[in-house]
């Protein structure tokens, strides 16, 4: 599903963000990516989402070498993976419905199908009644769930989450992880970057630990 082969990412200004990273995430697997701030978690997720390109090594998603993916195929690749961000990345002046519908509209889906899919996703995260609301009128936790609904509305095989509970209190964090757990149960692969070690330990899934750009611990098999 996701394969990293000796991946290094170097920035001209701050040197190596990732050093010789190798691991594989199997289809339907859920894993946590942990480490301190600046350990390289976001960079690693960015390489999968093609927000970045590796300096060395190969990243494969669904058997496809991302290094060989032409630029014009990048949007389609991003629609195939669901991305969740710590700052929610919602468009403030669009309604909750329009925010969640964005990947489907961008994919050129018919309006009728979009309505069904978006409502199903919002129902899933318990925000159906807020479909007409603007994101800024919602709490931080609700905004995060809008972000989750947008990530799953395209029915992705992989969900990437970058510090999804960074701005949430413990109760809302638990609720968010429960949602991820349910997506995992229906066969979706999840890679979640977090430094909430208590949560990671309590959920009992595979953990990849980064330290200064190196993969220092992997509780799974490679």
């Amino acid at each position, binding site marked *: 599903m996701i394969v990293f082969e000796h991946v290094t990412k170097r920035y001209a200004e701050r040197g190596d963000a990732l050093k010789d990273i190798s691991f594989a995430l199997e289809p339907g697997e859920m894993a946590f990516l942990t480490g301190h701030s600046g350990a390289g978690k976001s960079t690693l997720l*960015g390489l999968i*989402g*093609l*927000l*970045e*390109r590796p300096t060395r090594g190969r990243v494969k998603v669904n058997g496809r070498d991302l290094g060989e993916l032409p630029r*014009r195929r*990048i*949007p*389609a*690749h*991003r*629609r*195939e993976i669901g*991305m969740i*961000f710590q700052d929610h*990345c*919602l*468009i*403030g002046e669009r309604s909750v419905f329009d925010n969640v519908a*964005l*990947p489907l*509209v*961008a*994919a*050129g*889906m*018919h*309006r009728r*199908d979009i309505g069904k899919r978006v409502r*199903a*996703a919002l*129902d*899933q995260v*318990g925000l159906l009644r807020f479909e007409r609301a603007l994101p800024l009128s919602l709490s931080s*936790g609700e905004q995060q769930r809008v972000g989750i609904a*947008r990530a*799953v509305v*395209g*029915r*992705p*095989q992989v969900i990437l989450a970058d510090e999804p509970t960074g701005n949430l209190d413990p*109760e*809302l964090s*638990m*609720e968010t992880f*429960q*949602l991820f757990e*349910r*997506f995992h*149960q*229906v*066969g*979706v692969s999840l890679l979640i970057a977090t430094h909430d070690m208590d949560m990671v330990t309590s959920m009992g899934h595979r953990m990849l630990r980064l330290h200064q750009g190196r993969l220092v611990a992997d509780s799974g098999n490679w």
Partner: protein
Amino acid sequence: MAKRIREHRATPPRREQRLLASTGRGRRNHALGAAQAWLGNHSSAAVETFNRLIRAPLGSLMTIATVAIALALPTAMFVMLNNLERLGGGWQHNAGLSLFLQPAIDEARAGTLAETLRARPGIARVDLISREQGLAEFREYSGLGGVLDQLTRNPLPVVLAVYPTYRMPPKPPPASRTRSLTSSLEQLAEVDFVRLDTQWNARLRAIVALLTNAALLLATVLALAVFFVVGNTIRLEIENRRTEIRIMDLVGATSAFIRRPYLYSGAWYGLLGGISAWLMVSTSIHLLQAPVTRLAKLYHTEFQLDGLGPIPTLILLGASMVLGILGSWLAVGRHLAAVKPG
């Protein structure tokens, strides 16, 4: 909130199953559906961008007014030149050659010569102006009535006013034809000299041609101004919507999808600027109509200003829209890449 969390935890995974089970499947690729979706995207982009213009009326009006003024100036110049050409054409129709006959030629011989000339090809009409008529006209238009009274005899010769043939609708004969007609008439023994009444008209046409070139130059410069005004407005719009563009890119929107609303914005600025320019020019023509008619009457002629016809109007609106789109295309091309991540 706690109740909602409990509800969530109690929810069986069946709902996720429904939501995610058909991962990678179920994509409708029917051509009709895709076309409908494409049209739907375009229509919603057009409506959304128009609403955005309405929501920021002051900024939009300023851009539209700038575009309108830039378009109205060359348009007004073209309308003015068109009317000037029409006016010149009308006068040309009444212009001809004046054959001043030898002083010894009397009116009877002049009448015979006029008959001969009427039979020649390329000549539409020949009018005979007798010595007395000539003197009366000279007295009326020269203001030298007192001086003329002191003359013992009429010094003016008989004049034949020769009008060359025109094609319909009235169009002046080519200069070469007029020249050859002039030189052939000068050869006649009865003719003292020939005065070409169309020379001033040729000068007018040269001035109109010069002004047309100047108008084209002005139109090019102002078209560039429209291009850059729209481009700059779109650049600012892109700057204001950096976050939205970044998010769209992150969720997999194509460059065409991200670019689309900005191109529609450019098209709206251009089109609305074009409509405003048309209104400005049409209103100006309407306001000038009465004074121009009064002025024409003073010259014993009837003349009405022509406005922009349907085809020039369509050209103006089409060109303004294309300029708007091109301006925004330039801005989007230059600035979008800088805003998008990765």
